[in-house]
Structures are given as C-alpha cells and as structure tokens.
C-alpha cells in the first residue's frame, strides 16, 4: 500500500519533468547538434557528427562555420534587432492598453468580473490563424476599414494598411494582449483597495498613489505579463508572414526560410540557438537581479 502510494506520488511529481525532458531538452539538444554539423544535400540535409568511413576510421564532422556565417552577415543581426524592436514596441503597447483593462476587470463586481474574463478568453476559442486572417480582411484595400473611411469622407483613395510593420505590430498586440492582461489581472485582483484609501488619507493624490502604491505592488504582474508577451514575439513568424511586407524582415521568418526554403538546417539551427542564447542570458540576469531587489526591498 505504502509503496503504491509512493509510486503514485513519484509519477505525479515527475511527469512534468519527463515532459520537459522529452519535448524540450531533447529537441533542443538535437537543434544544438545540428547547428554544429556540416550541411550537405540529402535527407536529412546535414552530415552526421560522428561517421565511420570505409576504412573504419572515425571522422568528426563538427564545424563552427554556421555560427561564423550568421555573425559575419549583418542581414541576420538586423532581422534579430527588428524582432527585438517589434517585441519591445508591442510589449509596451500591450502594457499600456492591458494595464487599465486588467485594473478595471480586477476591480469590477465579481459577477461582471467573470463575464469580462470570459470575454477576454473567448478569442482563444477560434484558431489563431483565423483571427490573424480576419485582420487581413479588415485591413485590405477594399476592406471594412478603408470602405468606412472613404464613406465618411476622410480619404478618397484606399490606404495601404496591410503588408507593413505597423500591420505586424497591430496583429501582435491584438494576439498577445490577453497574455499581458491575465497575469496583471492575477496580481491586481489580490490588491487591497483599502491601500488606495490609506494612501489617499495620508495625503497622497491619485497620481502619486498610483506610482507609489499601486504600481510597485503590481510590479510582479507587470514583469510576468511583459515576459509572456516579449519572449514569444521575438520568435513570432506567422503574424509577420501574414500581415508583414518587405519593409522589415523578422528573425522568426528568417529561421523559417532557412529551414524550409533554403533547406539549410545547420544555419537555421545556429540561428535558433543564438536567438535563444541572446534572449535567455539577459532574462536570467534580469530575473536574478530582480529577485535580489525584491528580497532587499519588500
């Protein structure tokens, strides 16, 4: 009986770890391996790292050339910077739009609150691709938006709203807004409204109360929301593919092209690995310094 219980507990605790190893670490290790291998024509389109030739010698096919190549070509760095700037801009916009919404939802009466939360989650019931396509329809030359602006007499010719980086930002903000709102809501709903009264009573105007009490106390929610938006947007390639034009190239799309258009898996893998490295290192440093700051200040 006891051993059974132990077994049950073991599975309960370690299932997530198995999942993580099977579907995250092993694929990541494979990508890492490919990123150091030599490209060739064939299937798969790269040489095995360890080969035994006809005379029975071991041959090690390892190269750092893929990395050297992507770092030597400014094109890749530029696409990465484009993606970072897209992620930064859209995270900021999501925060500015999402914070008041999260605050409003968190502070409304429980009945209305649940309704509002459902409204926030409803878009997830439709395919993400479909929702991005919908924007295509809305924004195109003879789309609703253009037609409306023409009918109202603001413009005479349809604007080209689609296929530029503004359309990409719009699509990203639209798609990722709930990922900002939900963690913010999670922190704000726990916020004790009497703290606002208390600050007010102690001589604090509304704006000061926001910056000195509400904002510091919702900082963990802000950070969680920003992470949830920023990190996936850096690698986002579907939205730029559907709504973006040739004015800006994004990192996710470059990786996709290297994999499926150029069929250069080693370079694509090297790009993916560098992307992860550049993203993870700053985040880990930030997390560590933030938890230190938290420890000292709270």
């Amino acid at each position, binding site marked *: 009986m006891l051993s059974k219980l132990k077994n049950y507990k073991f599975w309960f605790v370690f299932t997530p770890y198995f999942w993580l190893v099977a579907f995250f670490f092993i694929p990541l290790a494979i990508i890492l391996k490919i990123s150091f291998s030599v490209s060739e024509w064939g299937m798969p389109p790269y040489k095995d790292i360890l080969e035994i030739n006809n005379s029975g010698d071991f041959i090690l096919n390892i190269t750092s050339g893929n990395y050297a190549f992507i770092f030597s070509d400014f094109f890749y760095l530029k696409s990465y910077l484009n993606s970072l700037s897209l992620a930064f801009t859209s995270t900021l916009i999501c925060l500015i739009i999402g914070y008041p919404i999260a605050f409003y939802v968190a502070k409304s009466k429980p009945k209305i609150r649940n309704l509002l939360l459902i409204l926030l989650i409803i878009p997830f019931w439709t395919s993400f691709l479909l929702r991005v396509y919908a924007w295509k329809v809305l924004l195109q030359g003879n789309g609703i938006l253009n037609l409306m602006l023409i009918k109202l007499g603001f413009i005479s010719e349809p604007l080209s709203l689609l296929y530029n980086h503004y359309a990409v930002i719009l699509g990203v903000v639209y798609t990722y807004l709930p990922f900002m709102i939900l963690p913010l809501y999670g922190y704000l709903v726990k916020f004790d409204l009497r*703290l606002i009264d208390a600050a007010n*009573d*102690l001589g604090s105007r509304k704006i000061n109360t926001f910056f*000195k009490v509400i904002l510091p106390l919702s900082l963990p929610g802000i950070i969680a929301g920003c992470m949830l938006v920023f990190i996936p947007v850096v690698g986002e390639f579907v939205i730029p593919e559907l709504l973006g034009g040739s004015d800006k190239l994004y990192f996710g799309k470059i990786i996709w092209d290297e994999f499926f258009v150029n069929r250069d898996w080693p370079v694509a893998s090297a790009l993916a690995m560098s992307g992860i490295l550049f993203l993870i290192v700053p985040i880990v440093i930030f997390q560590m310094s933030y938890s230190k700051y938290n420890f000292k200040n709270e």
Partner: protein
Amino acid sequence: MKDSFLYIENVSKSFDDVKALDNVSLAINKSELFSLLGSSGCGKSTLLRIIAGFEKPDSGKIFLDGEDITDLPAYKRPLNIMFQSYALFPHLNVSNNIAFGLKEDRLDKKEIENRTSEIINLLELKGLEKRKIDEISGGQQQRVALARCLVKKPKLLLLDEPLAALDKKLRIQTQFELVNLQYKLGITFIIVTHDQEEAMSLSDRMAIMQEGSILQIGNPVEVYEKPNNEYIAKFIGTANIINIQKHQTKNNFFLSSELGIEIESSENKLSSKCLIRPEKINITKSTMDKKINQENSCKGIVKEVAYLGSYTKYLIQSKSYQFYVFQTNNFISENLNIKWDDVVDCSWNKEAIFLL
C-alpha cells in the same frame, strides 16, 4: 453646535436604494474619545468614511474646527484614519510606512526623520524600523498603523474597529494603552466599534446607531442606566424588559406588573415597559417562614445557573417572565447554594426600575 470641534450636520447617504445614513447630526468636542457603536450595517462605517472623505454625503455638511470640509478631498483633510485591516503598505518597511504621509506632504528630510523616530519611540517600535510588515506581529502592526496616522499630527483620528484583529488579552491591554495615548496627545479620537464593552470602556461619550440613525448620544453611564429605548437597553449589557400597566388610585398614577413591580408615577407617563438590570436584583433562597414584601419583589424558580468566577448568572422564572439576575460572589457564600429548580425570593429597589 457649529462651534463644536467636529460638527456633522444633517448628513444623508444612500447606496443604490439603501439608506445608509438618514439625516444624521452629531457634535463632537475637542480632545474627546468618542465611539460610534452599532451592529453591522447600522451606518457607522459609512459615517466614518464620509468624515475621512472617501465617500461624499448625498446631503448635509461636515465642519472640522470651524472649517467646512464637506467638499475637501481626503488627501487635504487634516485628519487620519486607522483601518480595521490596518492597510499597511506591504512593499514598504516599518519606518517607510510611518514616513509615507510625511513624504507625501513634502516635508524636509530632517523633519521627516525626527518625527518618524519620535513616534517610533513613543509607540515602542524601536528595532523594527527595517522589518517588513509581514515580519512583525499583529500587535506591532496595529502600532505601526497608529504611528503612521499620529506622525502626521492630525486634528482628528478616526479608528475603524481598532482592536478587532487582536486576541482578547492583547485587546484589553491595548484598550488601556489607546486611552492613555489619547489622553497624552490630546487628539480627538472617533472609534467605530460593534463591541459594546469596548465602547463602554474606551469612550468619554458614545453614539448608538441603528439603521442609519443615531438613537442616543451620551456617556457610558447614561447610555447604560438610562437608555432611550428597548433596542439600546438590550444592545448595551443584559436587560430584563418587563411589561407594565398603568392604573389610577384617587389622584395618583401607579405602574405595576404581575411581577410585583409597583411604582408611583407622578405624571401621566405613557411607558408600557420598564427595564431592570440583572445586577440590581437580589436573590435569596426562599424560606417558608420569611414573609416577602409585596412591593418590588417576587418569588421565582431558578432555571439556569452559570458560575463565572467573579459573579454568577441566574435565569429566574416567575409567572410568565424569565429574567436574569447577576449576583457578585463577594464572599457571601449563601447564594452559592442556590441550585437549579430552587425557589428564590427576588427583590429590587424602586430606583432600579427605569421606565422605557
């Protein structure tokens, strides 16, 4: 009335269709420790929030120290409130919590430091300055909340159920500390509480509220001995309410009941009920030979006995009435022999009867 320190004039407030305050007027003197007492939903907290400036009254005015503060926003009012939950800022340490209000007033650094350390000494919070709020005890949190208000030297301090979150022992100790502090600083205190014992022991004067109105204002003795109505009589302490009939002999009015209450009534009073507090009734074991005085006494049967150490509670049944008798256990041990179902003689002075 307008020259009183705090004057609340005909204040009304409704939430949706529920009247929280119905034309309330109240005058509070300087340096007074005043309690607003009532059960939950009586409007006492709404009144406090209106004084603090968190709610706007639908009608009526509020004057503090001769100044009309009705339209003054909360952050400009020269008063502070201590919340029941304390509402301390969890992201600030003890000394930053206390200094918060002074920083908001943009006082210079030196003065903020001086005043903060002064109040930290006064409230015995030394050594806790750098602690987080969740690292100190409930009693310490209560003192930080108090310090955060007092450091601003308010003209008026509002306390919302200040002792409700403390355990019983600490509550009694803190009660005395609060009274001493109020006496020492001379700041006017308004305390909101639902605990009648707390209100009695703390206040100079108190107001009893029910359904958005003030039923009675007075000092604890007046409220206990001379309640305005049956509700107050029952709300404060234990009350024996007895129906009385009025009758006339020659040119005098008499009020009496089947319980043997007999008092002369000089005017034509309309009272149909009277109050006798349980501690004002004497009981002794009934003895066959002892003749009892007809007036203001009765025979009864003991239904319940509860020995509480310093006194004993008896529930007595007499005719159609059940009433309480509290007898102090001051070394007169004969009462201790009174048991269930014993027949007892009850008696009281005429002065113990208060007509409602």
